C-alpha cells in the first residue's frame, strides 16, 4: 500500500511535470554549449545552513572549472575554460531545494531530470534524502554522484548509477576504534562508550555501524541514546548520560541538535571525559560560531585541511570565502565540492553528455591524491559505486574556534588534549 501511494505520487508529479514541459517548448535545445548538472541540497528547513554552505562550495567549483585560470596544482579541469573534452562547454548547475524532506528531495530529482534535463545529479546532504533522490536517478538512468552522505546502505542497494566519493560510516567507525585503542594505550579510560544519535537515516545507520564495528573488536557500546531530530529539548538525554557516566560519548547529530546539546550540557554542568562528534552538525561553521566555545576539546572526524598559504586548497578556500560570506571551507562542504569535481572530471573524460557514457567514465575514475582537494588516498569506485580510497583523520576543537588534526600521528599538528574541557 505504501508503495502504491508513493507510485501514485510519482506518477502525479510526472504528469504535472510533463504538462509543464509541453507548456514550455524548446527549453532544452537552446543550451548546446553548456552541460547541465542538477544539485539537490537543503536550502531551506532545519539543515539550510549546511545546504547554503554546500551551494557556495559547488558555485566555487563551477567558477574554477568555467574560468580555468590555473594555478591549482594537478587538480583536474582547472587549466582551461570549461570542459575540454566537450569543446570547452561550460558547466551549468541547477540547484534544487530538498527542504529537509525525503519526499521533496525525490520530487526535485524527478523535476531536475525530466524538466531541467540535467545530465547528472549530485547531493543531497541528508542520507535519508540522498536515499530517495538517487532512487529516481537510478530509475531514469542518470548518474548520481554523492560527496557527503555516509549512511552505509546507500551503496548496498545494487544501484548502477550511484557513486559515492566520501568515506562511509564504517571507515569512520574504524578510525574511531583505532583512535580509542591508541588513547587507551596512552592511559586514557575508554571502556565505557555511549552513542547519542538522531533518528533519521544518518544517525541510525551511523550508530549501528559504529556499534557493530566496535562489537567485532570486543568493545561493547554500553549506552545507546536515540533522539528525535529537531527536538525542542535534550535535557533528559543529557541527564541519562550524567547518570550513567560513560568514559566516551559519541555524538551523531545535525546542527540544531548539536547546538542544543552544547547548551544543555553546560546548563546541567555535564562534562564527559571525552566526546567524539561525528562531523555534520559539529562541523557546520555556524555550530562552531555559536557553540564552539562551549565544546572545547571536542573530537571530530575530517578529511579536509585548508593547508598552508599558496597551496591549492588554501587558494580554493579564499575563493570559497567570497561566496560563503567569509566562512572557511568546512569538511562537509569540501566533500561536496570534491564530489562535484569527480563528476565533472568524469563528464569531461567521457567527452559526452550521454548518461551511459558518463556512467562508464565514472566507473573508470582513477584519481590520485594530488588531484584531490580532500585528504583521500584517491578516488576509485568499486562495483557498488563506493570510493575505496576514501580516508579520514581525527581533529579536535582545542580552542573552541578551529579544528586541528590530532590523529593519526603522522598527520597530526598537535597531540590530542585531555580531558574534555567544555566551556
Amino acid at each position, binding site marked *: 500500500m505504501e508503495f502504491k501511494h508513493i507510485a501514485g505520487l510519482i506518477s502525479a508529479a510526472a504528469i504535472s511535470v510533463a504538462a509543464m514541459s509541453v507548456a514550455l517548448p524548446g527549453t532544452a535545445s537552446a543550451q548546446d554549449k553548456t552541460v547541465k548538472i542538477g544539485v539537490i541540497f537543503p536550502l531551506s528547513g532545519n539543515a539550510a545552513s549546511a545546504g*547554503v554552505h554546500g551551494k557556495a562550495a559547488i558555485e566555487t567549483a563551477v567558477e574554477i572549472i568555467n574560468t580555468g585560470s590555473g594555478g591549482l596544482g594537478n587538480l583536474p579541469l582547472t587549466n582551461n575554460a570549461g570542459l575540454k573534452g566537450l569543446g570547452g562547454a561550460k558547466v551549468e548547475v541547477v540547484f534544487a531545494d530538498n527542504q529537509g524532506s525525503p519526499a521533496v528531495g525525490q520530487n526535485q530529482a524527478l523535476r531536475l531530470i525530466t524538466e531541467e534535463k540535467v545530465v547528472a545529479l549530485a547531493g543531497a546532504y541528508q542520507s535519508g534524502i540522498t536515499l530517495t533522490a538517487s532512487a529516481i536517478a537510478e530509475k531514469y538512468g542518470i548518474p548520481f554522484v554523492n560527496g557527503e552522505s555516509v549512511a552505509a546502505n546507500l551503496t548496498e542497494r545494487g544501484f548502477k548509477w550511484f557513486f559515492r566519493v566520501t568515506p562511509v560510516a564504517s571507515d569512520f567507525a574504524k578510525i574511531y576504534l583505532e583512535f580509542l585503542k591508541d588513547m587507551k594505550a596512552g592511559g586514557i579510560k575508554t571502556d565505557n562508550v555511549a552513542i547519542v544519535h538522531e533518528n533519521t537515516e544518518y544517525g541510525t545507520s551511523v550508530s549501528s555501524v559504529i556499534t557493530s564495528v566496535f562489537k567485532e573488536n570486543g568493545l561493547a557500546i554500553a549506552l545507546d*541514546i536515540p*533522539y528525535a531530530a529537531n*527536538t525542542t*529539548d535534550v535535557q*533528559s538525554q543529557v541527564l541519562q548520560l550524567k547518570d550513567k557516566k560513560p568514559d566516551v560519548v559519541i555524538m551523531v547529530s545535525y546542527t*540544531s541538535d548539536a547546538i542544543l546539546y552544547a547548551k544543555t550540557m553546560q*546548563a546541567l*554542568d555535564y562534562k564527559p571525559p571525552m566526546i567524539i562528534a561525528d562531523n555534520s552538525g559539529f562541523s557546520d561553521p555556524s555550530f562552531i560560531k*555559536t557553540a564552539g566555545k562551549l565544546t572545547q576539546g571536542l573530537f571530530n572526524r575530517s578529511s579536509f585541511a585548508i593547508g598552508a598559504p599558496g597551496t591549492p586548497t588554501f587558494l580554493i578556500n579564499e575563493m570559497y570565502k567570497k561566496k560563503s560570506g567569509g566562512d572557511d571551507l568546512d569538511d562537509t562542504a569540501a566533500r561536496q565540492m570534491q564530489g562535484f569535481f569527480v563528476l565533472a572530471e568524469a563528464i569531461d573524460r567521457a567527452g559526452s553528455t550521454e548518461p551511459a557514457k558518463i556512467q562508464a567514465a565514472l566507473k573508470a575514475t582513477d584519481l590520485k591524491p594530488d588531484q584531490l582537494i580532500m585528504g583521500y588516498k584517491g578516488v576509485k569506485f568499486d562495483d557498488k559505486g563506493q570510493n575505496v580510497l576514501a580516508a579520514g583523520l581525527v581533529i579536535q576543537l582545542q580552542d573552541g574556534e578551529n579544528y586541528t588534526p590530532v590523529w593519526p600521528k603522522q598527520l597530526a599538528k598537535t597531540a590530542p588534549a585531555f580531558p574534555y574541557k567544555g566551556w
Partner: protein
Amino acid sequence: MSSILVQVIVGGLLLGAVYALFSSGLTLIWGMMNIVNFAHGDFVMLGMYTAFVVWTLLGVGPLAGVPIAALVLATVGIVVYFGLIRSVMKGPMLAQILGTFGLALLLRYSVFWAFGANFLTLPGDLVGGTYDVLGIKLQASRLLAGVVALLVTLGLHLLLTRTSLGSKMLAVSEDATAAQLMGIRPDSMQAIAWAIAAGATGLAGALIATFFYIAPTVGETLGIVAFVTVSLGGFGSVPGALVAGLLIGVIESVSAYWIGGIYKDIVVYSLFLCFLWFRPQGLMGKT
C-alpha cells in the same frame, strides 16, 4: 526519589513553563476571534531575532530585548490585523487558514533573506549562569522564562476577567454585532487583541532566545508544540495553556528519560489524543 529524577521533573516544569509562555498568544487570538494563527511559531521566531538584533546593535541583554521585542511584535500584530486578518475574516475558514499560513512563509523566508540560514545564539551568560539548589541545576535563563510565563499568564487572565478592556474584548468575541450596539468598536478591540497576543509572543521569543538557537525555521519546531499546548489547555483559555504547558513539559521530560528520547512524542501525543477523546474542549476550554 533520586536527585536525577527530581532534576528531570524540574527540567520538565521549566520547559513546560516556556511552552505555556509561547502558547498564550495563540490561545488569546483563538479565544478572541476564532482564528488559528498558523504564523504563530514565526512570531516567536521574530521575537528571537529582535532580541538578537537588540543585543548585536546595542549590546544589551533581555532587559531591553524583551520589552523591545514585545513592542515590535505588538506592532507587527496590529499591521497583520489591518493588512490581512480583517479581510480574510470575511472569507471562508479556508481563506483564514491559508492566509495565516502564507504569512508564516512570508515571515520565515523574509528572515531567511535578511539574516541567512546560519544558526545564531545569544551569549550563554546573558542571564546569569546556572544555580545549584541542593544538587538540582537551575538554569537562570530558563528560570527567568518560567517566572515570566507565570506573570504573563496571570496578567492576561486578569486583563480578560478583571478589566473593562478585557470585558469589551470578550464581548466582541462573543457577539461582535451586539457589542457594536453597546458602543464598542469591534475593529479596535480585535486590533488590540492582536497587539497583545503578538506582543506576548514576541516577549516569549526574546526570552527563549536566551537559551535556544535562533534560525529562520525555528518557528516550525516550536509552532507545533504551541498548537498541542493550546488544544490541550482549551482554545481560548490562558490558564489552560499554562497547565497544559507544564503537563506536556513534565510528561516529555520524564518519558524521554525513562523510555527514551525518540518515544517521548509518542507518549505525549497518545495521551493527548486519549484526553481529547474524553474532553474535546481541552482542560479549561468552554464547551
